[in-house]
């Protein structure tokens, strides 16, 4: 990795000026999450860079104003992320999510359900797994279920299918790197009353789905890196945060 610890700090300027390419930008953002002095420096350098930006101010065409205001009038705004303690640490790019059409949900749901079945490797896990799989299948097939995919701060993607009918969500991760050492990925349901653990993501491939209960529209699903066995409250900033929406139909 090019952003090695000893020289990562030197990248604050290049980062503030957007002079890092995608991979290095992500690597540096991982470093930023752990380096308070770097984050502080980036904050100050961004202000300086913004002044260089405002120095280029040009009057935009008048039509742009009308178009922008009209577009805003027909565009729904993102809700605030709560609690603020977690929200402030989520990187901008992790918030880019996309709602997909129900037909796409169905296709993706089939793929996820197939994965769920293949993850069961031994016979004694089967009963438990079957109950879980039917719950997962119910979420995926639920009318009004919505799906969102979001990149994470450490790479890879997380897909969340939410069933407002069942108040349940199915979460799958793809291409997540292994957590360091014995650490684990832990899933949280976050709302105004705090963060509640929804279990650990399986180690290894980490592709098998996790089912979260009591998920209401507007709740957030977040994943953090925690010590082996998980914790009762998150101890690190989330690597990804996705909002549970009410259905896409």
């Amino acid at each position, binding site marked *: 990795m090019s952003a090695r610890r000893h020289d990562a700090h030197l990248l604050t300027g290049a980062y503030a000026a957007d002079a890092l390419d995608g991979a290095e930008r992500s690597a540096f953002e991982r470093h930023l999450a752990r380096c308070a002095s770097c984050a502080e420096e980036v904050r100050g350098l*961004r202000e300086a860079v913004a002044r260089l930006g405002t120095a280029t101010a040009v009057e935009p065409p008048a039509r742009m104003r009308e178009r922008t205001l009209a577009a805003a009038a027909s565009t729904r705004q993102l809700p605030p992320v709560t609690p603020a303690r977690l929200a402030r640490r989520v990187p901008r790019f992790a918030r880019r999510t996309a709602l997909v059409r129900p037909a796409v949900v169905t296709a993706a749901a089939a793929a996820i359900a197939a994965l769920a079945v293949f993850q069961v490797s031994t016979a004694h896990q089967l009963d438990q797994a079957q109950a879980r799989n039917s719950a997962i299948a119910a979420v995926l097939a639920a009318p009004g279920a919505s799906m969102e995919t979001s990149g994470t701060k450490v790479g890879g993607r997380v897909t969340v299918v939410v069933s407002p009918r069942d108040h349940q969500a199915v979460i799958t991760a793809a291409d997540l790197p292994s957590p360091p050492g014995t650490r684990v990925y832990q899933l949280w349901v976050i709302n105004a009353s705090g963060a509640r653990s929804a279990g650990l993501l399986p180690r290894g491939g980490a592709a098998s789905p996790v089912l979260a209960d009591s998920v209401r529209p507007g709740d957030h699903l977040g994943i953090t890196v925690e010590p082996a066995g998980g914790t009762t409250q998150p101890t690190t900033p989330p690597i990804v945060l996705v909002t549970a929406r009410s259905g896409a139909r």
Partner: protein
Amino acid sequence: MNTSRTGPWGGSPDPAEGGRRNLAGLVARVARGDHAAFETVYDQVAGPVYGIIRKVLRDPAQSEEVAQEVMLEVWRTASRFDAGRGSALAWVMTIAHRRAVDRVRAENAATARERKLAPGPDSGEDVAELVEAAMDRQRIRRCLGTLTALQSESIRLAYYGGYTYPQVAGLLGIALGTVKTRIRDGLIRLRDCMDVAS
């Protein structure tokens, strides 16, 4: 709000901002769906947003399209602005600049084989010319004047040119590590200069 993380720039808006002084308050109103507040925000930042995008992209039609996307992004994500992490102006300008360079790099990736490191869109321009349009241009020019030639050249190519620092190193024929430190040292000097002057 976690005020303990507020930096020297985070809590106190730059006096030179003048009319943008209450931009953070306006963004908070935008987050609550206030269309009138959004119009005011638009009037305050559309010029800088369009300006920096045009500086990077050059093409007026494309710049207008991207600037409109950025303004809509401001409307859509206003609730995610966190005053504890910096000024509202820096938040908006970060969105604008990043959109512009992402657009440049997506296009460059498509045509990288034909033209390796084509000259920058404004590589012949003098740094002082770039700041003519600024409301606080004198101060910025004075601060830019305190940089070494290599610092200001590196910053200009990276920020106004939209180049990655390895590309800047290639254009200037200097080592990667040198570019990294020149950009950082130059921005630190700019930051301190503007801070002192305020």
